[in-house]
């Protein structure tokens, strides 16, 4: 008797649990405009330093009924894993997802899993953005799957104290001249590095792969041709740049730092290296590093309106709305609002990055708010000038893999002095074949 009663109880319990499981699987799928009567919760996933926190509150206030549930992932690489996992699982993506330029190529392969923003008025606001940014967010079928947030035009960061030590000029305009102004080349960059190394015995740049990314990003075609064919093996122009970098590294110009770690920022305050390639968002990264290492404006960093080899863009993000969103219209509205010029100005102030809409860029140049950490540099004007002439490069599906798993190990061979230029290039080609071609 006692037993059977227990059995009954277990049956009942199992039933309840099953019911509960079934119940949680369901959800409403209404897409009516949000209002106080029809509250809508929107989820947003961003990564790194996005500067959206105040904007969320502002949007919630302006749109009664909307609550924003925000998640921020520590870096682009983890955000990629997160997004890919959820895409593969077919659920779990936020209503608004931030996508990085580096892995946009992979997302483009499954662009049908994202809402076509044309259905939500993308064409009406198209003119807001610099052309190439809007085009990057458009798939081959003309579907717009992402609104651009920021772009990464590259300038050159340098350390005044270290430049002084080497007898180089320290004023940012003179430094720009030193590197060759509008005609700055990588050859000059490495030659100056050798001079600096001779004068001080110290390294010139932190590690090779950031320099390499910059070099490749400014080529007309990078790891892929515009037709989507791999473009590494037998690419003479790319090989020439690789050799240039390898020669510099072999001459002791690389500090062999660990990228995105830099000894928890210590390398930025102890004079390990004197120049750093700086896409706009890098200022935010350096700021975090300096804070973590106890540095500040006195650490001597500044940013010059010059870049070897001409205009270059590295990174920048997009806001996308996945098809799995339950409130695509509301989500698209939020994405459009967050990327509108007015909000981009605020984002830029909060996150130290550079906006992708023309009006916001202009506003930042006009406001000319100095960046205290970088010797009061007028970063708006500097990056606006650096953004001129940037051409969007086609990013293939494996661009980020090639950057991180093919060239990073090869360049590491150079940094650690365990291989020559030939060996490192061969290793890169071998890795490319193993990881991408025969994947």
């Amino acid at each position, binding site marked *: 008797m*006692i*037993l*059977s009663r227990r*059995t009954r109880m*277990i049956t009942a319990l199992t039933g309840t649990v099953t019911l509960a499981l079934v119940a949680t699987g369901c959800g409403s799928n209404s897409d009516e405009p949000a209002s106080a009567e029809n509250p809508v919760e929107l989820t947003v996933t961003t990564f790194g330093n996005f500067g959206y926190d105040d904007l969320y509150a502002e949007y919630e206030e302006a749109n009664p009924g909307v609550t924003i549930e925000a998640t921020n992932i520590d870096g682009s*690489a983890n955000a990629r*894993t997160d997004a*890919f*996992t959820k*895409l*593969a699982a077919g659920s779990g993506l936020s209503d608004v997802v931030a996508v990085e330029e580096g892995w946009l190529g*992979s997302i483009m*392969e*499954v662009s049908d*899993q994202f809402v076509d923003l044309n259905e939500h008025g993308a064409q009406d606001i198209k003119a807001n953005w610099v052309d190439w940014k809007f085009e990057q967010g458009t798939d081959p079928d003309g579907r717009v799957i992402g609104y651009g947030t920021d772009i990464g035009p590259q300038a050159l960061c340098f350390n005044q104290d270290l430049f002084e030590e080497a007898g180089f000029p320290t004023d940012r305009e003179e430094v720009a001249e030193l590197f060759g102004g509008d005609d700055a080349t990588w050859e000059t960059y490495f030659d100056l590095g050798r001079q600096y190394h001779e004068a001080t015995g110290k390294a010139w740049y932190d590690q090779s792969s950031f320099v390499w990314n910059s070099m490749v990003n400014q080529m007309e075609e990078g790891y892929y041709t515009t037709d989507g064919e791999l473009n590494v093996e037998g690419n003479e122009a790319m090989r020439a740049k690789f050799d240039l970098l390898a020669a510099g590294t072999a001459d002791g110009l690389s500090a062999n*730092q*660990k*990228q*995105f*770690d830099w*000894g*928890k920022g*210590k*390398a930025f305050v102890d004079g*390990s290296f004197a120049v750093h390639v700086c896409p706009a968002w890098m200022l935010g990264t350096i700021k975090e590093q300096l804070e973590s290492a106890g540095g500040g404006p006195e650490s001597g960093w500044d940013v010059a309106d010059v870049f070897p080899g001409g205009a270059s863009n590295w990174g920048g993000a997009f806001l996308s709305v996945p098809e799995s969103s339950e409130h695509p219209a509301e989500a698209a509205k939020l994405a459009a609002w967050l990327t509108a010029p007015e909000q981009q100005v605020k984002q830029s102030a909060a996150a130290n990055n550079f906006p992708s809409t023309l009006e916001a860029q202009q506003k930042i140049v006009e406001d000319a708010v100095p960046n205290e950490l970088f010797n009061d540099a007028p970063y708006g004007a500097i990056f606006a000038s650096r953004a001129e002439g940037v051409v969007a490069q086609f990013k293939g599906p494996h661009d980020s*893999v090639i950057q*991180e*798993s093919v060239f*990073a*190990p090869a360049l*590491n*061979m150079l940094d*650690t002095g365990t291989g020559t230029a030939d060996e490192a290039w061969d290793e890169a080609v071998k890795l490319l074949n*193993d*990881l991408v071609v*025969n*994947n």
Partner: protein
Amino acid sequence: MTTTLNRPAAGNPAARKTAPTFRQRLNILDVKASPYLYIAPFFVLFGLVGLFPLGYTFVVSLFDWHLLKGQGEFVGLRNFGEVLQDRFFWNSLFNTVSIFLLSTIPQLVVATAIAAVLDQNLRAKTFWRMSILLPYIVTPVAVALIFTNMFGEQYGLINNILASFGVDRVMWLNETLPSHIAIATMVNWRWTGYNALILLAAMQAVPRDIYESAAIDGAGPFRRFFNITLPSIRPTMIFVVITATIGGLQIFTEPKLYDPRTAGGTARQFQTTVLYLWEMAFQRQNFGKAATIAWLLFLIIVLFGLVNWLISRRIATTGDGRSRRHRPGGWRGKSSAAPAVVLPAIGSQPPAPSREQEPSDGQTDTAGNPTTRRGQ
């Protein structure tokens, strides 16, 4: 338990006389079926979250399966062929085994030594026992963060200390062996205390009078340790070895967080097999091959389990196995590969608890054993 035993007695005489009533049938069914019902939740859950994924992973491994684009065409065993020829797969296997050996061997030696020390009559016993368990409570992520900092190449504590003694900096991240040692250190730090505590529990169950008589016969502390303690804790030791093996072959968190930007170092110098699996699935987006790696890893663990089981069976029979009663002859027969994996893990668990019963039932039994051994 008691109810199950009582029921048949009540039900049987009635059944012999007349046809059983519905109620009685229900009772019989209850008696026969309910034990299975009791254990069912585990097996249902295991089937759902263990067996099904295992089978499904195998299905995935037979296809070209892209992470984002989903299922592609059926390729049979091609993925297996390709992964077995993949230099990175073998590299990851080498790293896994190397880290496993570097962590398990010192860990067990030290754990046994600590357990032996704690087994002595110490003051503030609980304090010492809790202290050695402390690292186990800290989350692996925190452990990895702290150790990564300490093992930093240019700014790390260890290299700074080495440099102040004029020793060359060790490339803890970029070179293979140093990076393995660094990762093994994290594992050891976390698990040594845990294993020591399990071994200590086994040592506590060894009857004290054996030690006394051995001491009277003139055996020193080392002799007593090697001839009494070690043979007595053998079953527990086997359990610890097997769990350490399974854990060691699946190591992921420590090498992943040792360099969070890469999947096991820029040149894959500390990429373990599970990390390679992760890279294959989420960076290279080849789900089919990732599933293949998962299956190969499973087979390798089965293989290790089998070897462990064979060794442990040998040890158990040469040691105190003769006098132990929980060895039904049936399972030494033609057991297939599958139970061989499961059995050592489950089968070697009972010795630990059964030790606790020892003082009540097995004193003479185990007490006699070492004496005869010494007599030989």
